[in-house]
């Protein structure tokens, strides 16, 4: 009951939406975010871990892009690299460029980057229980970002906080400004995190598994909230998830990541209807299905993602792939185009002249 959302659009908000749509259209020629050949390595005593290896993708204004894959595939490190929050040491972005709204973030000064974080790029973390500071009030934590970036007075920033809390569906927002995180439920705390992410009208929100720590009913509400608000604010979303169901429901396009690489990319329809990479098949197969009566066991992909130290020149998925042949072990396939425009996959077997038609 406390989770109910009311999202009525007032006239001047509607005006802003159209204005933003106009702006979006004008900017359509270029992308909001262009990541090229991004590599992030972790220098550990056991060797160099290639956590993110030569990753390239782009994200249009207002678009929602999914980043899916198992644990340890480099999804989160990719997101952290975009905002240069990779813990250093041991992590380091070793090459590539991240052009955000015309600015290369990797060339920006530390101070310039700090000013961008939270203002242009919002972040929603996985676990709302631990991503709020237990000793500070909810009001302070939301206002912190606003005060930091918009230069509002204390009172004006708190007015904005109330407005945001209303927007994310927290009842009696003004009364709850002085509350501490432990007085909020998990779902409410994630709403607070969304309010923080949206507080400065960012152009991009990085949502790193935003619903993993929540139960399924709250999950649906939070996703709905992210989707409605990102439409309303015209915000682009990079949604990191291991739940393909969430990606299917939320995203315009999907990148499938495996072992630090993007192994398949395409529109959400293509990825779910005609995936061209055995790893994506495995992921889709492992979803539990209501109409599957053959077995009551969940299907899995055997094995684990490889350790990303001393990666050989071979398809990284080949040890777990049922279709692997010698070619897969000799050279790593490139990310090559498939039939539909914008659909790329990294697989010898489904490439031209491959053994899977």
């Amino acid at each position, binding site marked *: 009951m*406390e989770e109910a959302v009311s999202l009525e659009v007032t006239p001047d908000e509607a005006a802003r939406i159209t204005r933003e749509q106009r702006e979006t259209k004008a900017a359509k020629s270029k992308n909001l975010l262009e990541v090229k050949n991004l590599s992030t390595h972790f220098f550990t005593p056991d060797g160099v871990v290639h956590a993110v290896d030569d990753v390239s993708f782009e994200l249009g204004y207002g678009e929602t892009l999914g980043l899916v894959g198992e644990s340890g595939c480099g999804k989160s490190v990719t997101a952290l690299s975009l*905002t240069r*929050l990779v813990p250093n040491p041991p992590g380091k972005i070793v090459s590539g460029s991240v052009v955000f709204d015309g600015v290369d973030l990797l060339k920006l000064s530390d101070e310039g980057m*700090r*000013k*961008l*974080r*939270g*203002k242009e790029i*919002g*972040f929603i*973390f*996985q*676990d709302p229980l*631990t*991503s*709020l*500071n*237990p*000793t*500070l*009030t909810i009001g302070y934590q939301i206002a*912190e*970002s606003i005060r*930091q*970036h918009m230069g509002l007075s204390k009172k004006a920033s708190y007015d904005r906080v109330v407005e945001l809390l209303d927007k994310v569906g927290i009842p*009696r927002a003004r*009364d709850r400004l*002085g*509350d*501490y995180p432990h*007085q909020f439920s998990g779902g409410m705390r994630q709403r607070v*995190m969304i309010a*923080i992410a949206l*507080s400065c009208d960012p152009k991009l929100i990085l949502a790193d598994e935003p619903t993993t720590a929540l139960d399924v009913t709250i999950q649906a509400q939070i996703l709905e909230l992210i989707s409605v608000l990102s439409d309303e604010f015209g915000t682009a979303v990079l949604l990191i998830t291991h739940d393909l169901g969430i990606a299917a429901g939320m995203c315009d396009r999907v990148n499938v990541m495996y072992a630090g690489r993007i192994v398949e990319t395409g529109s959400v329809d293509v990825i779910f209807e005609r995936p061209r990479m055995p790893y994506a098949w495995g992921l889709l197969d492992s979803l539990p299905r209501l109409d599957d009566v053959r077995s009551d066991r969940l299907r899995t992909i055997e094995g684990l993602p490889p350790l990303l130290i001393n990666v050989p020149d071979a398809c990284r998925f080949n040890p777990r792939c049922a279709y692997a042949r010698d070619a897969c072990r000799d050279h790593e396939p490139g990310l090559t185009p498939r039939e539909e425009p914008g659909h790329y996959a990294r697989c010898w077997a489904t490439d031209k002249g491959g053994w899977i038609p």
Partner: protein
Amino acid sequence: MATTAGVLDRTVTARRSSGIWRDALGRLMRNRLAVIGGIWVIFLILLAIFGPAIAPWHYDQKDNVAFNLAHGRPAPPFTIPNHPLGLDNYGLDIFSKLLDGAQISMSVAFVAQAVVLLIGIPIGALAGWYGGRLDTYLMRFTDVMYAFPDLLLIILLSVAFRDTDFGRALNGLFLVFVAIGLTSWVTVARLVRGQLLSLREMEFVEAARAIGVSGRKIMTRHLLPNAIGPVTVAVTLGIPTAILFEATLAYLGVGVQPPRASWGKMIAEGVNFIRSAPYLTYLPGLMIASALISFTFLGDGLRDALDPKLKGKQ
């Protein structure tokens, strides 16, 4: 059932938020020993503040008339007029001397701990926040300080600086503050470092970074407030040690100098008359013991009250 009702009540009514400190105070008030300790501590603090006003005599003022009546010997409590706790072997009023001793002990308790915080928090925070080389250097230095016998170092410092202006300031009290502070910051530094090491890995720190909060603000606004609880406990539990150090120094004659009447000094003078006038030793001894015990009870109570893992229990 009662718990469920309580939770519902909390979410439904627009209750003014309580905050962590008020919760802790509530838990502290339910701990009887801590309350007794706290009351005695407050009583001693009041004695220290208002001592000069309520003392019937100056601690250095000899009452010749009464002393002659007592044949030039110490007078036990409740035996002669105008001196409720009797006279000591110099003919000085014991009650007034005890009040001055309270002032010395309480100022040592708080000022020496302030010095401890002033040194311990920055060193621990720098080591915990920056890690790496700086951490190694600072912590090895801390280990060296820790390995050195505290009392010996305090005595050395006291003796070395005794005849300088610095050593004579406040009848030697200032030197006592600094000497105790310089040896006791180690615990706080280690504690703050440990707290920061675990806190800086917390997700809320990453979240604060992700909204562009600067490093300095993360430290002062997000990290140190989270470490205040354990530091408060450590400081409170460090106070008895500081009081005892001061008394020991005075007993050995290297601490607070006469005419100030430290409890330790009073005991040192009293032991010569332990058979004929045992109260000269017992009375200041009782004050020291009660001060130590009450601060310890209070510190233990604070530790339980501020420990988040115990929330909801008791």
